[in-house]
């Protein structure tokens, strides 16, 4: 039996020729916020609290932007390897730790020194937990 390919071709074409997107410069920062919301949702069963916590994260913190437009130094460190370590460590927090942090967002952001690479306070100052923006200038 012949398989009609037209609907699939139409579906593929619907989103343009190229579907690959560059990482938005604030993606590593937002991922930290998403990870906090995800852990709160899983550990408290309160989706509204999780969403509200993310919105507070956006209000109280600012994102360090990484546009990765500079050519990487083949002999240097690839900073992009560290940009998502913050969201990874937050995403690995056990519920006991999540509940202990409660509403203290600094507590979540202290799980990795890499959090300071991607997040600052809203006034641009480095996180109090260290590993702050001084160690990563952003681009």
């Amino acid at each position, binding site marked *: 039996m012949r398989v009609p390919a037209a609907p699939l071709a139409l579906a593929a074409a619907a989103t343009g020729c190229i579907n690959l997107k560059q990482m938005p410069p604030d993606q590593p920062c937002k991922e930290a916020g998403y990870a906090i919301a995800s852990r709160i949702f899983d550990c408290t069963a309160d989706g509204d609290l999780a969403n509200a916590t993310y*919105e507070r994260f956006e209000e109280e913190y600012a994102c360090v932007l990484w546009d990765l437009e500079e050519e990487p130094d083949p002999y240097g460190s690839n900073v992009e390897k560290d940009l998502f370590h913050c969201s990874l460590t937050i995403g690995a927090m056990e519920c006991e730790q999540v509940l202990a942090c409660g509403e203290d967002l600094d507590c979540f952001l202290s799980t990795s020194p890499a959090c300071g690479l991607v997040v600052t306070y809203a006034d641009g100052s480095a996180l109090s937990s260290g590993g702050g923006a001084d160690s990563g200038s952003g681009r």
Partner: protein
Amino acid sequence: MRAGLLVAGAALLSSLAGPARAQDTTGGINYGDGGDKRWWDPDGVSNCQSNAPIAGTAGYRNASAAITTNATTYGAAQWAERNLFPMVHRRDRPQKATGAGAMETNLVFTATRVPSVESGYPFGDCPYDYRVTMRALDLGASNFGFAVKKGRVGLFYAGSLTWSSSAFANNAARGMMTGSYLIWGGVGAAAAPALGGWEYEQGVSTISPDWILGATVDASYLFAEAGYVGSTGFYGHVQEGTVGFFGSALVQKGIDGLPFFKAGADRVESKAGLSSVYARKLPLQAMPRYGDGSGAPQRDGDTEIEDSLQTAHLEQLNLGGVADVLVAGAWKPTPGLFEAQVGVHSKGYHEARKAQADEEEEAGLLGQARPGFLVRGGVVNLPDLWYYGVEGGIYGTARLELTQAFGDGTPMYVQMRLLWNDPEMLALYPFAYNGVWASYRFWAAF
């Protein structure tokens, strides 16, 4: 000989699944400036062919959930329950020989986007500013099955092949590879037992075959099926045939099996056409944490946690016999308009629930689509779901359905569906905004 065939088949399926699969980036990083540019690819992004998903991101968590949902919704047993059993349990002719066969393919393009590291391998021209990207995740499911019944007993078989793949950068290549999945996915589903429990998983690229073989018993108003599922062992399912109560020994997921609530009036006839009013509650489940440093999901609690999307729907179908208007509002998690759509369709595409049930039961096609076409479009207003990394807002939505009947005596049907941001799709994959769902289905009953 048999072992050789198995290895060859497994290698073939692996190669099909892995055109852009996750790779160890430590050995193949090789960036460039995009190489020769094309008008359809001004950045030379088509050179980025190999990548690794980044654990700890919302996209990676969503991908894990989507892969599980896809595998369970279109697993062999669940698919047989929805598609085969209703077609052979026909109360109008319990003592006569009946049978049914069906095959189906479902494809979801961009079920989510996964932050990924591009390795530049094997070509050297993947632009260095694309070394971290948002890769689309595509899902697919191929199903094949048949059932026959003589008197009160019968046999059935169903196979499934569900898969996921991080998408090609280039949509043309993506479409061509997906076309080949249509063929090999169907072959894999039909021959799933020969794969001997083989599965494939690398990053977010997976292949999962499954099958079920069993027997049916029709005790007038009680239908029972028992069989063996390749992945999980013995299976049992009982359905009461008058009211529709059912019980199953396997946990179902997906549209029909999630802790899903829907109540109201369905397709009530009036002078205006067919009216439906109902409330619906769809689960939004929490994602597990990463527990062992490998990025593998691990759940802390004893129970699965869920939020829900709660909506109220007003649907006026068959206006003038050919038009539909659908409006829905949400009160949780965010109050407001949820959906507004208008559509046109061929006459007779929708019928009153009672009339449809009677007629379809006579034809052994309970729950199946009717011949004709439907085109529908509008807007859907998604709530913010930050725990999925989803920013809400108003998105366009569209649906196209074509169903064709042919054959005399033994009716056969072909149906194609194309859905974009459709509420039915977002119910299964709430993070799949701007995704496209394409499906192809063939079935026949005698």
